[in-house]
């Protein structure tokens, strides 16, 4: 009889453990976000936010001091007054001191996770949350406004702004424009798939969004009208990028696209090895694209002179620029951050201990 009780209790514990482990594993899974200022690179990667010296690749600080039970994956962003803003899966938006990693303030009024990075303007942080809202927060962490309406779904990508309006996409296949001062809706538009990344502003009042439905849509920022829909071979994960001439986007089949933003110029494509999950990075006339297969591609802005470097692990995160360095955060390859120059040479790598 005793054995039966023990067996029953054992089974219950196993089941509970499996379910608990499963839940934890699922919630704690994503890829890191990276940004940099002139001194440090900042990585939001799982249980910590790390600052790494750009010259040496040595860790400067990490936040919090003890591993957080709730992870950080949203791309960190810097304010003009030197704060590092990063959201966590614990529904909190943190401001950290870039020199020491000390916490300046916490904004805790959101109801869900911070998946995407924030937009920082001269005086406001526009933070998108999975609770279907955008929060406008001051540099002291006080709420200026929250969108007075709920978007149709979670917001995973950082918004963009032209000074008048703030633009963002949702998982519910909608693009919204809201007034930058009040958060009131200006227009909304439906596209063909969920928007997982950030939109990008182009020339002549045009907004570009990549969709999970496999298209790059351009919209009029004035009224939301769809101007063009470029069909891609698979879904576009993170948002596109632009260099003033072309808008660039990669898809899950590893196809990389350049579409001219004006009538001049020709579109071009490059087939790369591995799914393109992160956004492209534009550094002058060089376009950098990282793929899931662990390759980092460098090409000029005509799609020529393609060269690549293979890193260990997979790359899902958008690469970040730091002066002449390209910062790449691989997943599962051992290194937390790798710094490359524009020739593809590895300058240093950092592994979080």
């Amino acid at each position, binding site marked *: 009889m005793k054995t039966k009780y023990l067996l029953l209790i054992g*089974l219950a514990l196993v089941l509970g453990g499996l*379910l608990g482990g499963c839940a934890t594993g699922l919630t704690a899974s994503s890829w890191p976000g990276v940004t940099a200022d002139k001194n440090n690179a900042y990585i939001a990667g799982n249980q910590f936010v790390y600052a790494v010296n750009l010259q040496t690749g040595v860790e400067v600080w990490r936040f919090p001091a003890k591993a957080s039970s709730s992870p950080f994956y949203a791309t960190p962003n810097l304010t003009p007054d030197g704060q590092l803003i990063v959201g966590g899966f614990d529904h909190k938006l943190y401001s950290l001191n870039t020199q020491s990693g000390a916490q300046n303030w916490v904004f805790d009024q959101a109801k869900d*996770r911070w998946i995407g990075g924030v937009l920082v303007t001269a005086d406001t942080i526009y933070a998108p949350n999975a609770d279907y809202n955008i929060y406008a927060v001051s540099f002291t962490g006080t709420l200026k406004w929250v969108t007075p309406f709920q978007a149709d779904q979670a917001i995973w990508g950082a918004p963009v702004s032209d000074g008048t309006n703030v633009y963002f996409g949702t998982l519910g296949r909608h693009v919204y424009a809201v007034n930058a001062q009040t958060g009131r809706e200006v227009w909304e538009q439906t596209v063909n798939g969920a928007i997982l990344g950030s939109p990008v502003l182009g020339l002549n009042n045009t907004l570009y969004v990549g969709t*999970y*439905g496999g298209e790059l849509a351009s919209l009029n920022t004035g009224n939301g009208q769809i101007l063009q829909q470029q069909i891609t071979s698979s879904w576009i994960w993170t948002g596109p990028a632009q260099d003033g001439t072309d808008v660039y986007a990669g898809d899950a089949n590893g196809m990389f696209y350049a579409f001219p933003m004006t009538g001049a110029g020709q579109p071009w494509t490059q087939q790369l090895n591995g799914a393109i999950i992160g956004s492209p990075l534009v550094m002058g006339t060089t376009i950098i694209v990282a793929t899931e297969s662990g390759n980092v591609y460098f090409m000029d802005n005509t799609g020529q002179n393609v060269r690549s470097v293979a890193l260990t692990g997979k790359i899902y995160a958008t690469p970040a620029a730091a002066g002449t360095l390209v910062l790449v955060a691989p997943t599962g390859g051992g290194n937390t951050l790798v710094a490359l120059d524009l020739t593809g040479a590895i300058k240093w790598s950092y592994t979080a201990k």
Partner: protein
Amino acid sequence: MWETIIVNPFTNVLLLIYKLIGGNFGIAIILFTILIRVITHPLMASQIKSSTKMTQFQQSKQWQDIQKKYKGDKEKLAQEQMNLYKELGISPFASCLPSLIQIPLIFGLYQSIMRALAASPAQLLILTRVVYSFLPISNLVPLNSQFLWMNLGQPERVYLFGFGVPLLAVIVALTTYVQSKVTMPASTNPGDQGAMMNKMMALYMPLLLGYFALTFASGLSIYFITGNLIGIAQYALLGKVNWRAVIPGYKPETTVLARNK
């Protein structure tokens, strides 16, 4: 292996049901539970048959005589018990096998629910890659995780005067208790170890599942509640439900064997 055999098919069936019914994930979980119960019904019927036989065995004069005879010799008692099992065509594990099968199903379903709801980019990327080609994933994502007052991807609470009341956990515990009681084989033999085990199960299982409902995503609670109600219905269909057992202080009048004799 686990992913290929259990989690991925479960996720796809859930998504297929979700698509067919027009985008209600709560209903999809309920229909999926019914489907699982229909598929495992032969096992359930066999379990009922086996536990009835086991109850009869525990109350049989033969077994009671053997118990008296070999009171001081545990080894001989066990040997005689096995012989009697063989003679009467009873498999001691047949009654608990269907319950054990539930464990991987619960685990698989929980993973499938969390996977289908894809609450982070990495989860969505995984989901995108495990969905079979006949399902238009870009049209299905994101799933509507709201069902009645619940977010199916989060533990459930009903807020009353600022306090979060775990209503679903209470319903899970209650339906589990009712199911255990009304489907428990009647026994009057005070030494019936099986009956004692069943009584303990009727007490602990509601607490255990209630705790799971309190802690884990409410989609799992929907599975538990639906499963409990269907379980009662399955027993009722086979004429094995004893509604009086839920009345406090209820005591069975006679043993099954005595009545058959």
